[in-house]
């Protein structure tokens, strides 16, 4: 375990740096109630107080402590990112693997559905879903699941087609294994590497989409501590309170940067051709 850890740090220094950022992000999200000095929705102070001793990141237009909101924002971002990606990518992967293996009309039909879903620019698809579903954090997750499913279906389908061409699948068919057994015992376990890569690389994407939606005003309700929503409020007060733009923006950039570095190195590790490079 310790040896594996050292090897990861030596081979993927950027990935290790990303992992540190991600661990900090997770810790902040988990311990938000302890770390945040005030409640994220407590409008208890003077508005537009500049960053200082009392409020390290200042206060916003309603007199809420920005530091507390940024800390709780980590929890919201990570929650939305992880839940939507796990559900969306899993659903899409099973869909892609099953239709890819069955082939024929099921496959062709499902590919057209994927095409149609991917024909809409992602932010627009999410925006229209939110318009239909109504604004709430859960609906952002639902919209993201719908956004991520077709991508995963397409990727895993092509992986599954490659796996299905292996002799061990043919052997399973020859021994009379049922299709369900072949798909879930032989096919899907062999697609796991790609599945893990999809999950790790899409969390940062989901976080950015959530923030973008909230930024547009179609994501989390305005009182929720979403980094994107905080930025919108900041832009409206750009001259009086620029800190309202800087801190949430910095938080999201750092989170995305860390997740990207970690995701990239996980991808490199699962692809032998890329092993040993420094990204």
């Amino acid at each position, binding site marked *: 375990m310790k040896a594996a850890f050292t090897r990861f740090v030596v081979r993927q220094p950027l990935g290790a740096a990303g992992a540190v950022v991600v661990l900090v992000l997770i810790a902040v999200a988990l311990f938000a109630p302890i770390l945040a000095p005030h409640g994220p929705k407590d409008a208890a102070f003077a508005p537009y107080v500049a960053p200082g001793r009392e409020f390290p990141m200042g206060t916003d237009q309603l007199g809420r402590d920005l530091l507390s909101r940024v800390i709780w924002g980590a929890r919201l971002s990570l929650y939305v990112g992880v839940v939507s990606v796990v559900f969306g990518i899993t659903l899409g992967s099973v869909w892609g693997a099953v239709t890819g293996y069955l082939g024929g009309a099921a496959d062709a039909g499902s590919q057209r559905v994927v095409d149609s879903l991917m024909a*809409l*620019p992602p932010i*627009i698809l999410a925006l229209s879903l939110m318009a239909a*579903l109504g604004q709430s954090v859960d609906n952002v997750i639902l919209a993201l699941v719908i956004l991520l499913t077709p991508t995963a279906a397409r990727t895993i389908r092509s992986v599954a087609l490659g796996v299905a061409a292996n002799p061990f699948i043919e052997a399973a068919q020859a021994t009379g294994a049922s299709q369900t057994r072949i798909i879930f015992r032989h096919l899907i376990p062999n697609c796991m590497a790609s599945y893990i890569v999809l999950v790790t690389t899409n969390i940062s994407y989901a976080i950015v989409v959530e*923030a973008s939606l909230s930024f*547009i005003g*179609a994501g989390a309700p305005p009182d929720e501590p979403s980094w994107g929503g905080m930025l919108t409020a900041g*832009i409206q007060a750009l*001259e009086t309170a620029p800190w309202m733009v800087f801190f949430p923006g910095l938080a999201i950039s750092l989170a995305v940067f860390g997740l990207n570095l970690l995701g990239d190195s996980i991808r490199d590790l699962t692809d032998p051709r890329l092993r040993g490079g420094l990204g």
Partner: protein
Amino acid sequence: MSTYILHRLLLFIPTLFGASILIFVLMRLVPGDIAEILVYQTGSEASAVQQKQIQQIRRELGLDRPVVTQYLDWIGGAVRGDFGQSYVQRRPVIDILKERFPRSMELAALTLVIAIVWAVPLGVVSAVRQNGPLDYLARLISLSGLSLPLFFTGALILYGLVRFFRWLPPLEFVAFTENPVENLKQLIWPALAQAYYISAPITRLTRSQMLEVIRQDYVRTARAKGLAERAVIYRHALRNSLLPVVTFIGWWGGRLLGGLVIMEMIFVVPGMGSALIQAVSQRDYPAVQAMIFVMALVFLIVNLAVDLLYAWLDPRIRYA
């Protein structure tokens, strides 16, 4: 070649059809129905008058008819350029599109031009001087471009303009045909912010493609027969490495119209993106439906054009 074109066209139609059904269904997922939302928006309790209003709106919008008929009506109109009436603006949706669409297209074109002019040469230089200081600088620039969310870059540029140049986004939009200078002054900043974002993956792709191509035998042959380095790079290597870059830029160009929503919002550009956000918040469904449809249509047309261009550039594709 003609079989290939035919094949691509045959894929285009069902995809557009599927996307249109998707958009239509989405707009009907709204809890309750549009008529109720429109009437209750005013916030009072349900009354007999309102019940009557709801009935009337349903009839006006054709919501009392079967869904399939509604869809056929809508798509039939859409094909002829008739997207119905906007609930809020009380005018045909096509008029809104005619006003907003060219502005967003101009912004998108400007963005793409800036991104290509900046990103492709940067990628080439980065590859030719691999591991040199220029290469590291280029990679750093593109890595940071990948990590900064679009709305943060936009907000920072806006802050810089406001803070140091006392520049505020103009409230009135000036068309290019009216006053090109004023028009570009208005659009250059959102275009730069968006271009910075999309140039990052373009630079990285150009670099990796170039690195692959300059190790090919025919590049060595070109050098061996004594060609100038410039000719080797530009005539032989660059052309061949640009193929995937072209596809990628096309793919981005197609979805740019949607991505510009955020830039239009930050820099107060009255284009299609800001119209869409407005329509969504006002629950102006005919307008929302039409704008999303147009965006999907542009995306699919650009994709088709890129595929055909690709086949024209690379003979291996059309004969495969």
